[in-house]
């Protein structure tokens, strides 16, 4: 039996599903369409194969995810990854936090800031800009959302414009979604 990963890390674990993934050979046309399966693209993760049980949402979800995380303009890709990690920290999604911490580190070419976020959460000692981003995204991720006008003021004082703040809202909110799937439909096990 593999060991469940319980502490935040930037080393990406495996993900073990609690729900049986759809078998590609038995998938319906709607599932294959949502999975975007082609003869050259048959390597699909267990996570996505679990989500294929609901092809109607999966079909919209994949392009929406890409639009929020990779659209041109607005907030930098690295800072959107910080929004993703902030939500994952609140929702305790170890797997999402690891994947997006690793991406942040690659994009920003720095590992020190993310190491502090994973270790200390909202208390992490960061630059004013990153600190404002982290705290806003973590508070937005609570239930009910707890971000306030003061948190937005902290973002604008740290130099973020409205387009960047909208992208931060979207990336943090998107991981309120992703975490609620990844953390509940399976668990991270040591790679």
């Amino acid at each position: 039996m593999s060991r469940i990963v319980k502490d935040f890390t930037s080393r990406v674990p495996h993900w073990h599903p609690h729900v049986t993934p759809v078998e590609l050979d038995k998938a319906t046309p709607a599932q294959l369409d949502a999975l975007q399966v082609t003869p050259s693209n048959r390597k699909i993760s267990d996570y996505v194969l679990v989500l294929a049980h609901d092809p109607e949402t999966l079909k919209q979800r994949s392009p929406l995810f890409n639009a929020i995380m990779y659209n041109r303009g607005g907030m930098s890709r690295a800072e959107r990854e910080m929004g993703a990690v902030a939500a994952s920290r609140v929702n305790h999604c170890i797997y999402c936090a690891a994947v997006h911490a690793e991406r942040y580190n690659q994009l920003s070419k720095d590992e020190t800031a993310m190491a502090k976020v994973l270790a200390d959460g909202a208390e992490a000692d960061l630059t004013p800009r990153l600190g404002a981003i982290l705290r806003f995204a973590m508070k937005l991720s609570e239930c009910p959302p707890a971000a306030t006008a003061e948190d937005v003021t902290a973002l604008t004082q740290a130099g973020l414009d409205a387009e960047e703040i909208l992208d931060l809202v979207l990336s943090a909110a998107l991981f309120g979604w992703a975490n609620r799937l990844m953390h509940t439909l399976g668990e991270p096990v040591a790679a």
Partner: protein
Amino acid sequence: MTDLLLELARIAPESPLAAIAAKRGDVFELTQKTHDAALRPLQPGGLSHGLRAALACRIAALNGDAPFLGHFRGLLDEAKASEDERKIAELSWTGGDDRSRALIRHTDLVASEPKKASGADIRLLCEAGIAEADIVRLSELIAFVSYQIRVVAGLRLLKGAL
């Protein structure tokens, strides 16, 4: 563009924030399509449109979001939800049978405290007779509505700052 999220955030069509949101038009459009896929899918499986609207009402209430609660109550009417489904929309109701109790328990847990969820919670759904495909449909519904509520919460804050 009349968009549900901009409407619930009370953002006027000609306002500066509407212009900024328009630059992310693809995101708003795909969000609306996912809303329809989660709340009123063509293939609802074991989760009727009325049940989905009722569970969404709970999620809106747990997030303290009255405009979203009003929206999902409208979907209850649109779906001609049964009396049993309407009861599920009320947070004080914890369920009338094993199946509704399990659906309500899981919705409330994952909407409000996802960090506390574990494999044991998925087993409880299986034991209540909920099919694996319906577990995924339920999870997408809870997760999507939680996302949508946070986008609007952020838009309201941004509106106040512009």
